Structures are given as structure tokens and as C-alpha cells.
């Protein structure tokens, strides 16, 4: 009896599935056309843009500051009359530190809100998750964080540094300082693993030896073993690609193992002013960082940016490289749209080449073919006041080279 009843229901359901599958299969050779891009809704006197950052989860602490500086840029632009006479209306979404959620929210911003551009994403994994969404819908993303390179999507503008604007100058600096051996410590995800691959290729070609390479899971706070290995290796310097909270534990262990910036300097690529504050200046004083911008960078544009940021969000809030890159991205988009005379994505992309902006970090220029921007590299030293002061810079903006094609030692990397 039971068996019979079950079978009938099962058979009914199966028929439904088959019918649905058949009905749907009729459209294999689709003449409806692939979604030819959803054009932005600019009919009113405002233009919508999407803000896609993690407001919850592990990445929130960093990404909220990026959202804040994007909002600052939007306010400035609106106060000056908007873009092409339209005020910018920001639509915020929470990526929740979860990559598939980023993809979902990106699609929502593009298809439901019909925004003209999206600003945001931090981790490489979130960028990789949204990349197909932007390419499929032919919509624009402005990505404001330094990353591992080896990417060039026609629908993404990369306003943070690629490897030849941050990691390679960092290595050049260490080499010039006489470092002959390195120890690599990083979080276990794509950026550190790819960055370390590049570092190893650089070291091999420049007569440096890599004495060890260790990865800790994101969020790990157990660094006793790693610091002991670092110490006993006797390396000249440590290259640190740890992200987030792990840095707190790492630098505490580092200090208690008796290692100092004088005996074995650490170059970090993910520690900016905001992180210095949370790790504790006493652990970081004298250590090195590689970025393109510091709060202390000189110039009228930066003074204005820092003052405006502190006026809006509080005097104790520092500004950092990713925040600056996000701020710059909104202004660059405005300049591109105004040069194109339209919000149309393809026209904006065509107009992008050669756009310049007097940014807090100095003059930046959009490189048309790669859609990255030319930036000045800066090595900084953490001071006792928690701010980072520049000890070296590249003198002029470095042309972005995401695939490191102009570096012979990087031949096997891409």
C-alpha cells in the first residue's frame, strides 16, 4: 500500500520534471540574444551607483572604511554639481564577506537598480566571484585594493596597485638595503600564494634566497611555530602577506621571540594606518610597509582629503591606501563620464585612456589598455605615533603591468 502510493507520487513528479525539461529545452538556439547589457537608468535627475562592500563578517572592519571614503567622494561631487548635471545617488549593498553573496548583490545592483557603475570589493576571491557578473552584463566595477595582478577584465577598473607597483618595488628596496635572504609568511588564500610565487621568481633572478614559506589560515592566531622557524632561519628580512587579525598575533609573537625591526625587518603589504592602530604601535614601530599612499604623504590634495575625512568621520580616524584608492576611483569615474559625455559603459571605457586626477597620492593616470592606473610606489616606516612615514618612493608613477610582461624574470608566471 505504502509502496504503491509513493510510486504514484514519484511518477507524477518525474513526469513534471520531464515536461519542464522538454519545455525549457526548446530554447537551445536562443534568438532572444544574450543579455546585451542592462543599460543604466539615467532618466531622472539623479544617477545611481552601487556600493558593494562587506558591512558584516570578517572583512567588515576594513571594507567599512572604504565605503566611508566612497561616500565622501560622492558628497564632494554632488556638492560641486554632480556628474553631467545629475546628482549621484548611492545604493549600498552588503557583501557579507561571502563571495557568492558579492555575486548576488552585484547582479541585483546591475539588473534591479540599474546603476551606472559599482564601487567596491576587497578580497581577490570576491573580485573573482563578481567578475563574470560584470562581464556578462557589460557593467562597470571600480576595484580599489592592491591585488596579485594577472588579471585584466574589460569591465573592471583597478585603482589599487598591481604587483609591479607594490611588491616589486618593495623587493627592490630590500635588495638595495642589502637583504640577501627572505622568509615569506602569508595568509592561506589566493593573494599571498600568488604574491609569493612572484617573490620567489624575483628572488631567483636577483641572487636572493627564500629560506622558508609559511601560510596560516585566514583568521588564525597561532604563530608560535612560524615565528620560531622565522627566527632560526636567520633571514635578512621577512615578507609578510598576512591579512586581518592574524597580524596582531604574528607581531606579538615576533616581538616576544626577541626579533626586532633592526635585527630582522618585516615588510608588510596589507598593513595600513587602520591596521596599525588595531595591532598596536608598540609591536610595529620601525617595521616597513609597501603602499602607494600614506596619511602623511605630502601635497595639497592629501591635506584636503585628510581634513575632509576627519571632519566627516572623526579626528581619530586615519586614512589609508585602499580608502584613498576608493576615493580616487569615484573621481576618475566622474572624469571618464564627463569626457565621454554619456554614462554608456562602452563609451566610458573608450574615454578612460589618459584620464588624470590630482589624487591625494599625487598625479594618477588611467592606463587605457590595462584599465589599471599609473601610481607612485612608496615604502614607509611605522612611527611611534602609529602613522607611517615614507622612507623611499619610486620618484614617478609606475606604469601598471599586471602580467609583469616587462620583467624578464617573470616569464614563467602568466
Amino acid at each position, binding site marked *: *500500500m*505504502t*509502496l504503491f*502510493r*509513493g*510510486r*504514484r*507520487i*514519484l511518477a*507524477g*513528479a*518525474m513526469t*513534471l*520534471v*520531464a515536461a*519542464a*525539461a522538454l*519545455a*525549457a529545452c526548446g*530554447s*537551445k538556439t*536562443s534568438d*532572444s*540574444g*544574450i*543579455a546585451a547589457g542592462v543599460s543604466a537608468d539615467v532618466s531622472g535627475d539623479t544617477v545611481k551607483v552601487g556600493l558593494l562592500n562587506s*558591512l*558584516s563578517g570578517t572583512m567588515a572592519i576594513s571594507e567599512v572604511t572604504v565605503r566611508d571614503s566612497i561616500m565622501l567622494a560622492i558628497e564632494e561631487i554632488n556638492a560641486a554639481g554632480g556628474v553631467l548635471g545629475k546628482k549621484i545617488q548611492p545604493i*549600498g*549593498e*552588503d557583501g*557579507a564577506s561571502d*563571495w*557568492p553573496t558579492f*555575486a*548576488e*548583490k552585484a*547582479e*541585483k545592483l546591475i*539588473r*534591479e537598480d540599474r546603476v551606472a557603475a559599482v564601487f567596491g570589493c576587497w*578580497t*581577490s*576571491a570576491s573580485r*573573482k*566571484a563578481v567578475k*563574470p*557578473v560584470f562581464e*556578462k552584463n557589460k557593467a562597470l566595477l571600480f576595484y580599489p585594493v592592491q591585488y596579485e595582478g*594577472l588579471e585584466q577584465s574589460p569591465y573592471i577598473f583597478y585603482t589599487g596597485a598591481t604587483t609591479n607597483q607594490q611588491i616589486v618595488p618593495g623587493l627592490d628596496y630590500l635588495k638595495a638595503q642589502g637583504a640577501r635572504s627572505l622568509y615569506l609568511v602569508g595568509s*592561506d*588564500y*589566493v593573494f599571498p*600564494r*600568488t604574491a609569493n610565487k612572484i617573490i620567489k621568481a624575483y628572488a631567483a633572478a636577483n641572487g636572493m634566497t627564500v629560506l622558508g614559506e609559511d601560510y596560516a*589560515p*585566514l583568521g588564525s592566531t597561532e604563530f608560535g611555530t612560524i615565528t620560531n622557524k622565522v627566527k632560526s632561519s636567520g633571514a635578512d628580512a621577512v615578507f609578510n602577506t598576512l591579512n586581518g587579525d592574524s597580524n596582531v598575533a604574528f607581531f606579538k609573537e615576533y616581538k616576544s621571540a626577541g626579533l626586532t625591526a633592526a635585527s630582522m625587518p618585516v615588510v608588510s603589504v596589507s598593513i595600513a594606518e587602520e591596521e596599525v592602530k588595531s595591532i598596536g604601535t608598540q609591536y610595529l614601530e620601525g617595521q616597513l610597509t609597501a603602499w602607494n599612499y600614506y596619511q602623511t604623504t605630502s601635497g595639497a590634495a592629501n591635506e584636503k582629503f585628510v581634513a575632509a575625512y576627519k571632519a566627516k568621520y572623526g579626528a581619530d580616524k586615519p586614512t589609508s591606501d585602499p580608502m584613498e584608492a576608493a576615493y580616487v576611483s569615484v573621481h576618475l569615474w566622474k572624469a571618464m563620464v564627463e569626457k565621454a559625455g554619456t554614462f554608456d559603459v562602452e563609451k566610458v571605457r573608450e574615454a578612460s585612456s589618459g584620464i588624470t586626477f590630482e589624487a591625494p597620492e599625487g598625479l594618477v593616470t588611467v592606463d587605457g589598455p590595462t584599465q589599471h592606473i599609473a601610481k607612485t610606489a612608496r615604502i614607509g616606516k611605522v612611527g611611534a605615533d602609529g602613522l607611517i612615514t615614507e622612507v623611499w618612493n619610486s620618484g614617478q608613477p609606475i606604469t601598471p603591468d599586471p602580467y609583469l610582461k616587462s620583467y624578464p624574470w617573470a616569464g*614563467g*608566471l*602568466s
Partner: protein
Amino acid sequence: MTTVARDPVTAAEPAPPPPGEPAAGPSRHRFRAAAGFAFGAALLFAVAPLMLSDFRLSLLAKYLCVAMVAVGIGLAWGRGGMLALGQGVFFGLGGYAMAMHLKLADAGPGNMPDFMMLYGQLDELPLWWRPFASPWFALPATVLLPMAVAFVLGSLVFRRRVRGAYFAILSQALAAAMVILLIGQQGTTGGTNGLTDIQGFFGYDLDDPVNQRMVYFIIAGTLLALLALARHLMHSRYGELLVAVRDGEERVRFLGYDPAAVKLVAYVVAAGMAGLAGALFVPAVGIISPALIGIVPSIEFVIGVAVGGRATLLGPVLGAVAVAWARTALSERFPGTWTYLQGLLFVVVVAFLPGGLASLVGLARRRGGEPRDGLLSRVRRRRAGTA
């Protein structure tokens, strides 16, 4: 026949009746089930596609995949008492098996997937990727691989009579281990990024909204089929035995049954459902990553089931869809504070509706009728001196 297992158990121990088992006669029963399925099918196949935009429909497809996992958890946890806190593993196995095949199909014969060139710098495809080039291997693997893993794990665990919290912790550990394994092997698994940018689905371009719709229909149909299967299992003699094992494992053992085997079947079926859900999730969303299969998503699967009502047939499905929908709706409306609202929702459900949303329906229907799980009915039962 079906009373052999049930009677001694319930007679000897007045355990709370498993919630959600209707007491109606068989013919009314059958009619209600058929009507329910017809209603569900009409909702999924006609109302939803007509009412929702392409984007919302693709979100619904995603929710329905989560609901498939929930059907399995309802069986294993609600009926079998096994708190499966590591279903992400099986979801992931199914998802990765499907994604590996689709990535290879996208790359074309003889080529390697894009990310491998980028991160792996391998000269040729790793050996364990190769079979996935064939759909005849990959498609069955999406279901059979999770089932095989569940079988091995379940055989080891249930024979040794590992139960309750120990079983839950073990399944969590498995989820954590799998994530670490995937992230560590960046060159061949895509690491934290997972497998992204999946463009085709057996020759259909997934960028095309029409084909996205087709994927939705396949998912909706599969969910109905899985519900039918779960209903069949629940109402069969096996289903009675499973509930008996949940409520009194030792008693069932003394009656001459092997509780380990009974539990193993439910666990393996639940794993297969999770695998199938993972496999269909990939064309619907276009990504599978460790972030979808670790400890947190595994717990989220269970939360959906708990909110819906774990021991009923439809409760897990409704709960999973409701939780996923609430997550989207709340986070769109209140991007800054939605996590608090979601937490509040869970607290409210757990505090006032321990039987889940499904018990709400039951309560409303039987005002003052037969006692059911839920706060009110438990109070009533306690007053009557039966609990």
C-alpha cells in the same frame, strides 16, 4: 505489518509523538499529498516564473537548491535524530564535481581550465581531474561521490554508536577539513576563489536568461522529485523504523534490528540530496567555493531546517527558503543592520515555535485539537500530566 516496530516502543515509553505525522486516514492522506504536490508544482512552474523578474527567479533557484539540502537534513535529523552539521561537505562534493566538468567543457577538449594556468602552472591536467571531462562520469559522481563518502563515514561512526553531540562535532570537523584541503591546493582547486566564471551548461550558454530559466525549471522539478522520495521514505515501513531508532535506539536493537544500518540509509540519502543540490547550484549561481561548504554554511543549512520544522516533510523546505529569502530581503533593505534582524528572527522562532514554522500551520489548523509540538501544546500537555 508496519506496527511491528512502532507499537512496543511507543507503548513502553510515552515519548512525545514525533511532530508532523498526520493522523488522518490513508485515502484522505493520499488526496492531500497529491493536492499538495499539484499546488507546489503550480506555484513553482507557473506562478513564480510569471511573477518574478529574471534576477529574482535565479535567486529562487538558489534558494531551492538550499531547500534540497534541507529535505535531506529533515530526513536525517528530524526523522533519524542525526544532527548532520556537516552537510556542506556533500554539497561541496556535488558542486565541485559538476563545476569541474563544466570548467573542462568550457575550456574545450585538451585545454586546461583558466585558473590552473594562472595559479598552478601545471603542464597537464592533474590525474584526478581527468575523469570529470566525461559527463557520464561527472553527472553520476555529483550524487554517488557524496553518498560514498557518507557511507564510509556513516559505517564507521554508527557502528561504534557515536551519537548526539559527538556525531555533530565529527561532521563539523569533516567540513572544516575539507575547506582546508581545498584552500591548500590552490593550483588544482582554485583555492579560496573556488571555481568561478562557469559559462556553459551542457552546450547551453548560461549567460542567456532563457537558459537560466531552464536551469530554474530543472531545479524546481528536482526538488519536487526529492520531496516525493522523502515522503515515500517517511511513510514507508523504513520511515517508521527510522523514527523508532531516533526515539529509542537501544529498544530497536533489542527487537533484532540493526540501528546502524537504519541510520546509515537516511544519512547516505541525505548526502546524495546535498550532492545533487550542490551540482544544480553551480549552473544556477555560476560559482562553487570553500566559502559555501565550510562550518558556517553547514550550520546555516541546519538553521533553515530548524526554523521550518525539522520533523515534517515541508517544514525544512519552507524554512530553508524563508531563511534565505529573509537574508536577501533584509540585507537589501537594511544593509548595515540586517544581521541583527536575522538573529532576532532565529531567537523568536526558537523561543516561541520550537516545532518551527510548520508547527504554526498545525497550531492554526487544530485550535485546541490534538497536542502537537510547540510551546502552547507542551504547556497544555504538561497541565494534562502527560509530559
